[in-house]
């Protein structure tokens, strides 16, 4: 089947920043994004878990965006300022997609 190159940008970021980040992604012109839950984690600021939590502070989500390679730079430059001051990890990976016209 005909595959096309694309980039998978995954941002693990504080849940309170979710809307600001997806707004930035939309501003960068991506065609879509998906938000996945993160249950727990650990890092330089110690371990955490969502168990029993009521407040949205202190949890993280993962936001995944599949984008055409030529949109990557715009995307990162929109997204980076938001992640910069916050706890968060950005990774970019090469993937292949079907139906390239969708991205």
């Amino acid at each position, binding site marked *: 089947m005909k595959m096309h190159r694309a980039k998978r940008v995954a941002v693990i970021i504080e849940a*309170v920043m979710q809307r600001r980040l997806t707004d930035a992604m939309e501003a960068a012109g991506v065609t879509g994004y998906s938000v996945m839950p993160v249950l727990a984690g650990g890092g330089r600021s110690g371990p955490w878990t969502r168990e029993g939590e009521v407040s949205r*502070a*202190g949890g993280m989500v993962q936001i995944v965006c599949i984008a055409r390679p030529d949109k990557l730079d715009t995307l990162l430059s929109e997204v980076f300022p938001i992640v910069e001051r*916050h706890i968060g990890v950005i990774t970019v990976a090469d993937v292949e997609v079907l139906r390239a016209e969708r991205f």
Partner: protein
Amino acid sequence: MNGFLDLAAANLVSPVILSFALGLAAALGRSDLSVPEAAAKALSIYLLFAIGFKGGAAVAANGLDRTLVLALLGGLVLSFVTPFVAYALLGVLTRLSPLDRAAVAGHYGSISIVTFVAATSVLEDAGIAAEGYMVAVAAVMEAPAILSALWLVARSGQGGRMDAGLMREILLNGSIVLLVGSFVIGAATGEDGLAQISSFIVAPFTGVLCIFLLDMGLVAGRGLRQVRGVLGPGAVVFAAVMPLAGGALGLGSAALIGLSPGGAALMTTLAASASYIAVPAAMRVALPEANPSIYLTLCLGLTFPFNLTVGIPVYVAVSQRILG
């Protein structure tokens, strides 16, 4: 004094407080006991809805006290002012950075609705009446302290982020909307409304509160396990002194406003309590460089248990003594 000891004793061996202690002990002993996040959120929705509705229904039953507006105004002022006291006290007791001091101060100006609920239970068990609209005062006190905190940060030269979006998030955050909304519903439907749903929001209330406090104990205990790395002795002292200072301000305001002893106890409790749900979320957005471990451990790990065990009986007894 006797009254206080009785109250304190009755409070300490109540199912509510012991459930909190159980959660705390389980977390400190590293049991894997845990309440699912969705269940904890559902419980908090229940508590907010129930407490708001009951407050509104009480207002509908007793009519609007002429002190209502004064009480709302008093709450507003308390929420704005208390952060400055907290900020100064932290300057004396700790070596935290101005940024962290401001962030913590914002939490102590705001309120903990669970502490408020626990105080309501204690009053009910002791048969002391209180103004139904105190729950509206609680709602009013949630947000202003955040602005004071941001002002303190701006003054110290570091810029927090504050824009229209964040402002709307703070004012329309879920707990404020639910509390005010259910208060209005309770006021609109009155005794009839209460009769329709009292076997949901009144009868099982204390039991539900037990499970919620079990969960709060688990979360607080998890935070406390990391306290040593995060907080110095000065901060620990602050966590017990600040509620007393805030409480004194609250009691003074209540006396000026002319609240009943029960209402004054609630006002004192609100002023003495510190937010750990709404304010932390706002602070993460507005002041991402402030260390969340510091304010969460102080508010949830130390001040919350302090108020629950020692604070509330003191606030109730003192309000009774002075205004009773």
